[in-house]
């Protein structure tokens, strides 16, 4: 079959693996966007910059001798706190105004963050070594599977499912969903909704930072690593619709895979395939594959 298509199985599975990894990042980032959108009703344009900050945070920690495993926990907490500060000092002042102001504000924040990092680190990438425990790989017969890449896919899946469980199946998640539907009523029941909004933003940001740490050993750590990436994530969000958590996860991984396949069969289109799919979905089902009508 492979001879028929003129493609070696190594190339095919290699690209599929890369696609799955990108899909994992799409899923983590669009999940964060969906959670933030649900509570705050804003699109977080700073999401790509915060993803980049997560990677840089891991890199900084390494300079001070803090390795990958602690960074996997520390970086999301640090960047999440940065997100909490943004929400407390700026975003919550915009409550009640049109959504577009939140979008413009976070876009400004993204420009500031990316500009500052570009000034100090230029545009070139900084290397981040794969942790010792995950070096090497497995020979599966039909392909070579690097351990680190397998870890990224499995770990992202676990985080995605855990987030889904947290929001859909726990009491805290029930409060969150209720506050999304009707914040005033939930406040009347004695729930501290403003605090919940702040923590939700922090949580979404922490997810982006976590994706950044996971990406650090694969993609180089660059100030603009999130700038173009986030636009693809926006397309993923439009395709999936922000209504459902599971929808974001499934769409993220699927589109990563499709992108990987495109790289094998028609590499010229690999940059644009997600956008083309977005256009088709808009024609057929404008609300998105898993979305409610907005």
């Amino acid at each position, binding site marked *: 079959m492979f001879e028929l298509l003129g493609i070696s199985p190594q190339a095919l599975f290699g690209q599929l693996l890369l696609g799955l990894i990108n899909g994992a990042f799409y899923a983590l980032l669009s999940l964060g966007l969906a959670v933030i959108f649900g509570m705050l009703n804003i699109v977080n344009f700073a999401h790509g910059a915060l993803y980049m900050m997560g990677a840089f945070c891991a890199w900084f920690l390494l300079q001070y001798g803090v390795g990958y495993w602690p960074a996997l926990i520390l970086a999301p907490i640090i960047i999440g706190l940065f997100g909490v500060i943004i929400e407390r000092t700026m975003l919550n002042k915009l409550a009640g105004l*049109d959504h*577009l102001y939140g979008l413009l504000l976070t876009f400004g*924040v993204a420009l500031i963050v990316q*500009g500052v990092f*570009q*000034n100090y680190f230029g545009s070139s990438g900084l290397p981040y070594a794969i942790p010792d425990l995950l070096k090497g790989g497995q020979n599966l017969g039909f392909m070579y599977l690097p351990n680190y890449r397998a870890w990224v896919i499995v770990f992202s899946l676990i985080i995605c499912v855990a987030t889904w469980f947290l929001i859909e199946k726990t009491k805290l998640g029930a409060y969150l969903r209720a506050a999304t539907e009707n914040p005033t009523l939930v406040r009347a029941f004695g729930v501290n909704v403003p605090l919940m909004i702040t923590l939700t933003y922090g949580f979404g940001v922490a997810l982006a930072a976590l994706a950044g740490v996971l990406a650090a050993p694969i993609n180089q750590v660059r100030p603009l690593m999130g700038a*173009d990436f986030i636009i693809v994530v926006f397309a993923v969000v439009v395709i999936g619709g922000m209504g459902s958590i599971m929808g974001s996860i499934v769409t993220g991984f699927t589109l990563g895979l499709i992108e990987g396949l495109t790289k094998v069969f028609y590499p010229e289109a690999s940059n644009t395939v997600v956008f083309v799919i977005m256009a088709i979905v*808009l024609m057929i089902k404008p609300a998105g594959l898993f979305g409610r009508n*907005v």
Partner: protein
Amino acid sequence: MAAVAISNVPAKDAPRHEMIAFAIMAAILLVAPLVVYPFFLMQALCFALFACAFNLLLGYVGLLSFGHAMFLGSAGYFSAHIAKVWGWPPELAIITAVIGAGAIGLLVGALAIRRQGIYFAMITLALSQMIYFFCLQAPFTHGEDGIQAVPQGKMFGVFNLSNQMTLYFTVLAIFLLAFLLIRRIINSPFGEILKSIRENEPRAISLGYKVDHYKLAAFVMSAALVGLAGAVKAIVAQNASLTDVHWTMSGEVVLMTLVGGMGTIFGPVVGAFIIIAMQNYLAQFGQWVLVIQGVIFVICVMAFRRGIIGEIAHRFRLSL
């Protein structure tokens, strides 16, 4: 869109002081090349037209497009390619580029208006990124190099555009005519319906207006006018490059409109001149320009949502 800080002061003699303001603007621009470097002025005029056309959509229909760079950049490529490779005169190159940008606007708009609010912003951004990758890979755009050494030629076979002053006054004439056209659109019955969509879309629908048709028409007009700015800019700068298609350009036009005052006729012009001047004088500081732009974004959104002209209009109860 009810919460957007657009000054809606009904003024009794609105047309009169608008015409006075227009006369002042035209007078300043007529004598400006004696004092300021004409090339800078022409660049700023192109961006001012870009911002005015963008504002037609954001300020008067309430649609935030985050991908307007695709019209600026692709029209630039059209006019540069037509003028250089086909050897057409500048007026035909510009007109063809405007039609081309309008056609792209029709396709993009038809997709984007299927969703509202922030989704609209994300869709336009994603589609403009698609156009960016297309321009990066297509052979006729020459990728990273862009189209360089575009001939300026003779406008209508008479005006020699390689003379800088002739070029300046041609650009100024195009800008002023386009500005009056935009003002005419805004003040027409069509423009009133657009404003009603901005204020309350469900009500406009319930009154029997086919809102989607109006939105699409406004989107195409905005795209074509942005195309005009891009086509002229390519003739002025004698090149077309990837910078004009990149999403940072889409962000810049939002910033210009925000600084000047969205939903005001003169605001985008003022905003464009301020931002372009800032970029010119701060060019030596490299990436700090981006940081400063980000800070201006944050300040405008937090404390200065009406913008400069919007603030003046509000203070003196004028419609500008």
